[in-house]
């Protein structure tokens, strides 16, 4: 049973991690908790299903297309909602994020209806539902394998983008000192938009994977996933991309094991309790930079 719970938790954690990097990257560059990120995750699932049912595109094309669309939505969100508030207090942008979240959620509800929908199973290769390998008493399906694979690949790609490319360097510069970065000739707004695009694309993949894995999509799905992913980002040390990945996986496993062994009623509570405990003992998360208070 333990192996199965671990696998369940790991799958969940991978998905949390993919969403959490979106939170943490945006937080890193503009110190904004982008609560609308969960809604992008939700929109991606609906867009993917729409592309499949209306245009009949194959699933691989749909994933790429949805990533593109969500990146675009993320950039638009930044340009129209957050950019005008760059110089305003941080809380103003936070409230805007909440407002956008409500708006997008209700928009999806009006466009696609409020009923849960199944994912289009016919569009998926049939082998996904079959068992790939058995570890102890745990069955790992090809679907879970491909979630691990895709998520790990994306994380590696993200890591390379952030650490090896010019734009990644610019992002890191921005997160250290925005004014300084601007003085060095970095186009701040463009880099921020790129960050939103990157985070949203990651969230989009997570959205499609969740929709396939659980075979359901509904307009409020972004809220719970978003909140959990946010907790994961904080757990790992907000602003730190590897931290978000680890935070997501830790949270997913803690949740699965907690629900399996302690109490399923306090399932979310266990996740939050772990989070609070980590923060109390490591006040800047698992991998966060601890800021020394200078006197």
């Amino acid at each position, binding site marked *: 049973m333990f192996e199965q719970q671990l696998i369940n938790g790991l799958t969940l954690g991978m998905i949390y991690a993919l969403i959490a990097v979106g939170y943490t990257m945006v937080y890193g560059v503009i110190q904004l908790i982008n609560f609308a990120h969960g809604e992008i995750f939700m929109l991606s699932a609906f867009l993917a299903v729409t592309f499949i049912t209306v245009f009949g595109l194959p699933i691989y094309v749909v994933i790429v297309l949805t990533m593109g669309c969500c990146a675009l939505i993320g950039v638009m969100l930044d340009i129209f909602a957050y950019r005008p*508030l760059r110089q305003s207090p941080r809380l103003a942008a936070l409230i*805007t994020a909440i407002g956008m979240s*409500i708006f997008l959620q209700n928009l999806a509800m009006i466009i696609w209806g409020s009923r849960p929908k199944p994912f289009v199973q016919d569009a998926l290769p049939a082998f996904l539902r079959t068992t790939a390998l058995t570890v102890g008493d745990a069955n790992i399906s090809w679907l879970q394998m491909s979630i691990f694979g895709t998520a790990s690949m994306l994380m590696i790609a993200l890591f390379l983008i952030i650490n090896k490319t010019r734009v990644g360097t610019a992002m890191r510069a921005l997160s250290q000192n925005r004014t300084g970065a601007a003085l060095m000739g970095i186009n701040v707004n463009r880099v921020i938009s790129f960050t939103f695009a990157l985070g949203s694309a990651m969230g989009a993949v997570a959205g499609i994977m969740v929709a396939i894995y659980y075979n359901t999509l509904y307009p409020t799905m972004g809220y719970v996933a978003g909140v959990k992913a946010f907790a994961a980002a904080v757990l790992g040390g907000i602003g730190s991309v590897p931290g978000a990945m680890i935070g997501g996986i830790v949270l997913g496993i803690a949740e699965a094991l907690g629900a399996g062994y302690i109490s399923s009623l306090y399932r979310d509570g266990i996740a939050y309790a772990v989070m609070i405990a980590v923060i109390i003992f490591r006040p800047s998360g698992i991998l966060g930079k601890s800021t020394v208070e200078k006197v």
Partner: protein
Amino acid sequence: MNPNLKTTLKYLLLAAVFVYPLFSFANEYVLHVMVLIMIYMVLAMGLNIIPGFCGLLDLGYVGFYGIGAYTAGLLTIHFGLSFWVIVPLAALNGAIWGVLLGAPTLRLTGDYFAIVTFGFSELVVLFLTNEIWLTRGPLGLPGIDPVIIDFSWLSTLIHPQWDWYWEFIGPQPYFYLGLFLVALVYVIMGRMEDSRLGRAWFAIREDSIAASSCGVNLLTYKVIGFAISAAIGAVAGAFLARWTMFLSPDMFKFWESFLILCMVVLGGLGNFKGSLVGAAILIALGEVLRIILPALNLPTETRFLAYGMIMVLMMRFKPMGFFPAIATQSRKNPILIKLKKDLGSS
């Protein structure tokens, strides 16, 4: 408008609101919404202490609101205590939890504190949902008595025929009780703002290092602020319990924390008078939309679409909130008044 006329008008409007429930044309629905607004006014004023005065983000205020409400609800149902006894008890319980949560976590900085408060409020809701033996869980807590004013012991002493016993039925008495609560919290906030306590908070908010070098014990003052804020939230909860006469964990979801935070930010961080306006606007907005949308032939489903959009737009054009803190601080300070007059600002 000249200032005198403005003041007169302000008091006239206040008086109009004050006597409105007494008229026979008073609309009970409007009164109901007004009572709701008043609960949120109390909440928004209480929350303002944390992000507004101390400069810390609190995403879990609804936890204290829920603690207060369930304290009141359970004490009423099991022990039949009077509202007037329950309010201090609820406040005390809120404050205790505020200290318990605040003491270990208020050392945290920035958004880590925010996320801890968020986790706390979720844990409160989970507790309310899952400890069915105590709270009846998701089944809710129906049948809470309304507020009762019982002076029959006194009246029978004076005159055997008299019966000074009133049970609150309908929104009118709650309206005045709510008004009383808002006024009480308002006065307390005003006194605190101008006290040593308030000045210490502002010092922490503006520059905690400087404040600490001046001998302000950061943690103590933050914990005091957190406890007071929690107590005010719990009082609002107690009022809610005796007003709606029904409680369920659904009423204290994370979303409520957001709503209250939005009120605070919209009204102006650090300005508790602004919180009053913020509460009035956001609660009234939901109701106004309920009425306007059908009039525009839009389906009910679009209500929160519009709500979200309006919130974004309000922040877009009033990013500092309607009344930024600086406008009201030490309004009685003659130098500042003179300065304001000279600068000719509103």
